[in-house]
């Protein structure tokens, strides 16, 4: 461990590699986390099948890749298909549990996650798959490996994030979603069809996850049972950033990506994920302390 730290001090160039890899993948985490923040904030549903939506998007890209289509073209397809799938899932399951207590929706989405994993396993088999972009890999600054696909997905992730933000700010549906998030009852009184808003929000989340999945399949590998790790990441990011805090989600997403890379480098690759959950614990402890202090001030 100390030896690994020594490498980073002796050859600072490798910090650049870790930062770069962390930021490019962190941007994709932020995307999926933003979808979760939406659903959580607007509908108060903690969507445990978030990661499965991501993996489904990945498999859409993989499927198109096996048919000879460049996986980048899967992006619009995944967005549309996953939006429709989100709508279907909302009507079938989520709309029935949205008014129930926390545990009902947790159990329902957890069950959904299992069903989706097994369905993907039945359709695509259990082996890991990748969608190859065929784009160039280069070495810059002597020792830093840069993949064009990572840079491109960073750009795409940013564009998607901007598009969602603009949509939420300016469109009628976006305004309705924000109104519902603030006060669902008041929104209803004002004539907003909240059920429609919920359905749209959930579908939008699925579409965002699908897009994230397409990008993930081109820079990492996917497998039917890998959804859970993406769900955990999304939860950590949202908890750390706080609901409805978009800049927070982006910073937390990028930060998590980088932290994972450093964790993996210093402690070994099997600690990459541990870093995520470790950070969640740290964040929760800090939030608890801050809240306790806040309570004292209020008292």
């Amino acid at each position: 461990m100390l030896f690994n730290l020594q490498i980073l001090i002796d050859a600072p160039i490798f910090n650049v590699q870790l930062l770069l890899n962390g930021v490019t993948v962190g941007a994709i985490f932020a995307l999926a986390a933003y979808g979760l923040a939406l659903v959580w904030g607007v509908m108060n549903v903690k969507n445990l099948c978030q990661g499965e939506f991501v993996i489904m998007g990945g498999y859409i890209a993989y499927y198109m890749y096996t048919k000879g289509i460049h996986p980048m073209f899967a992006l619009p397809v995944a967005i549309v298909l996953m939006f429709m799938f989100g709508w279907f899932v909302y009507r079938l399951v989520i709309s029935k549990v949205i008014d129930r207590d926390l545990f009902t929706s947790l159990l329902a989405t957890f069950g959904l996650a299992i069903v989706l994993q097994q369905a993907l396993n039945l359709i695509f088999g259990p082996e890991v798959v990748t969608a190859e972009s065929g784009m160039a890999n280069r070495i810059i600054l002597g020792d830093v490996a840069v993949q064009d696909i990572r840079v491109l997905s960073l750009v795409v992730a940013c564009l998607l994030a901007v598009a969602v933000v603009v949509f939420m700010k300016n469109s009628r549906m976006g305004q309705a979603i924000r109104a519902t998030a603030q006060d669902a009852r008041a929104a209803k009184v004002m004539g907003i069809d909240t059920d429609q808003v919920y359905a749209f929000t959930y579908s939008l989340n699925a579409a965002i996850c699908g897009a994230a999945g397409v990008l993930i399949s081109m820079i990492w590998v996917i497998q039917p049972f890998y959804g859970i790790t993406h769900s955990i990441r999304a939860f950590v990011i949202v908890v750390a950033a706080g609901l409805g805090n978009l800049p927070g989600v982006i910073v937390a997403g990028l930060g998590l990506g980088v932290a994972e890379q450093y964790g993996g480098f210093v402690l070994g690759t099997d600690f990459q994920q541990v870093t995520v959950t470790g950070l969640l614990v740290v964040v929760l402890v800090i939030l608890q302390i801050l809240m306790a202090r806040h309570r004292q001030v209020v008292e």
Partner: protein
Amino acid sequence: MAIDFSKHTRRGALAVMGVAAAALLTGHAAQAKVEGDTIILGSAISLTGKYSTNGIHAQNGYELAVKRINEMGGVKVDGKSYKLKVVYYDDESTPARGAQLAERLIKQDGVQYMLGPYSSGLTKAIAPISEKYKIPMVEAEGASRSLFTQGYKYLFAVLSTSEQYLASAITLAAEIAEKNGKKPSDVRIAMAFENDPFSQDVRAGVMDDAKKYNMQIVIDDKLPRDLSDMSTTLTKVRAVKPDVLVVSGHSKGAATAARQLAEMKIDTPIVAITHCEAAKIISKFGATTNDILCPTQWAETLSYSGKYFGSAADYDKLFKATYEGYKNVPYQAAQASAAVLVWKDAFERANSLDKDKVRDAIAATDMMTFYGGIKFAPEGNNIAKPMVLRQIQNETLNVVAPSKYASHPVNWPRQVPGS
């Protein structure tokens, strides 16, 4: 009175029928090991779930050997000719289910001769059951060293154990170092192994060989079960520039490593990865995988040959003709066939269907097959067949080590992907 009497007889009749049914059932169970002229083997195998791909390969291997043996006159015991048949249950790739099904095969179906499941994990779950009932099991898909340190008396494996998987790569590195006028002890090794029993066994084998040559381990990373990114390990590899990189993490480890080695243009001169074939890295990543070394239990190009299938190449041809959709015959299928051959050979040498006599005959096996030599150590593992190392050369796998079986010279140093 009359009514009472009739009641009694009815009850009596029911009881008799019950006893008769029970007798039928138990009688059936006791004879299930041999039905008429058919010897019944049993196996819990992964036909669904995460191991289903390889589970089906194994089942195909079992079936091909059964078909072949039956076509060649079956198994001759005590002057009588028997056919072979295998009863399968799907263990859904879960150890708990596998153990239940083994119990069912033995207790309910009366199976007295077992074939193994797929994977070390499932074998580990099933071996205690077959051991408990003293039912011999010849397995072909559980390579973990730890299966053969428990003192099992009824477990036999035709494949090479896991610690041999990458040890040959270390020996090869030592040979290359000597050829280039360097000392083997100058060789620096980077290791990345999944944190599961199988891969850790592979690691132990590498460690043993590295110690033998006094080589230095410069990276020793563990990979997570849900591995999707190992760029941090590879960044370290770029930083410390080892002479050898060895990776083992099942199919996902092979796929992740092959992809990221190319993406990051890692220039380690020797790279050896397990499960290249299962992960299909050549068809996935093409020429970027050239010069990667892949250990294998068996290859169709090897010069092994035996009575039932002819040479390794003959087996390859027959398998492809029998089962559609195979471009390469996976070694998982070949070793499954070999396990059935062990049963046939043992039945005939024991000249008996008594499970304990057959068990002793299995223990004394010493045969040559298309899959290689088979001879069991007292612990039950096969000591007559080495692992071979193949290198991806021009997108095909050629045997390069051990030198006795090598068909091509090894390419060294490895060509850097994309350069």
